[in-house]
């Protein structure tokens, strides 16, 4: 019974739209707050959802951010179409980034996105190919 999906929140994320980046994460946070989720869990999810959302904005052609609520866990899923991650092992290393200089000037592309996601997650799955990437992050309640 613990694996029964109770609720799914989904948001579209547009490539290169830095004006709206973070909107999905902000909406997820508000929803989790209204569900009475513990503030430490919300902080972790805010970091994870923001990093995945920014990754879609910077590196993909666009995608979706989902937040699935189960009885015993919350799962953040980012799905994008795009070139995929060429070298996942490198992308997991702190400081490694393929972001452009213009993106870095805005304070992104520090090479901490995936390492942060891993740090705050209980489980992380990355499926990537030359047509897109899906990242599934689980946080247990």
């Amino acid at each position, binding site marked *: 019974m613990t694996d029964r999906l109770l609720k799914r929140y989904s948001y579209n994320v547009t490539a290169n739209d*830095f*004006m709206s*980046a*973070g*909107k999905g*994460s*902000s909406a997820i*946070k508000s929803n989790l707050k209204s569900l009475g989720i513990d*503030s430490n869990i919300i*902080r972790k999810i*805010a*970091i994870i959802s*923001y*990093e995945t959302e*920014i990754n879609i904005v910077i590196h993909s052609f666009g995608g979706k951010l989902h937040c699935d609520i189960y009885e015993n866990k919350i799962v953040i899923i980012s799905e994008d179409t795009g070139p995929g991650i060429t070298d996942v092992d490198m992308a997991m290393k702190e400081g490694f980034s393929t972001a452009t200089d213009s993106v870095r000037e*805005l*304070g*992104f592309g*520090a*090479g*901490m*996105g995936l390492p*942060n996601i891993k*740090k*705050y997650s209980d489980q992380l799955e990355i499926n990537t190919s030359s047509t897109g990437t899906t990242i599934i992050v689980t946080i247990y309640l």
Partner: protein
Amino acid sequence: MNCLEFAEKLQLTPLCEKEANIEIEGVYIGDLLSIVMSKAKKNYAWITIQTHINIVAVAELLELSCIIVVEDMEVDNDTLDKAKELKIPIFKTKESAYQMACRMSDMGIK
């Protein structure tokens, strides 16, 4: 100490000060958003030279008490509009991040 008292004492320029009665419980200095996301905590004041709209998203997600833009950097109008909408106080100063941090420390914010 709340944001408003703090800003008055340090003579910071308020760019938008809605909800400026939020308490400041700590400080984080940083310009790389992912590192700020990971390190700054709820009710911290955030000192930065970044001025584009996404600083507001970071402050909102982390529930920071305010953003202090140093080195007299010009803040985008989009950023200010978003900050007003999300009730994130933004202050500005000509001082450096280091000078700001020293003064905040002198005021007892550690």
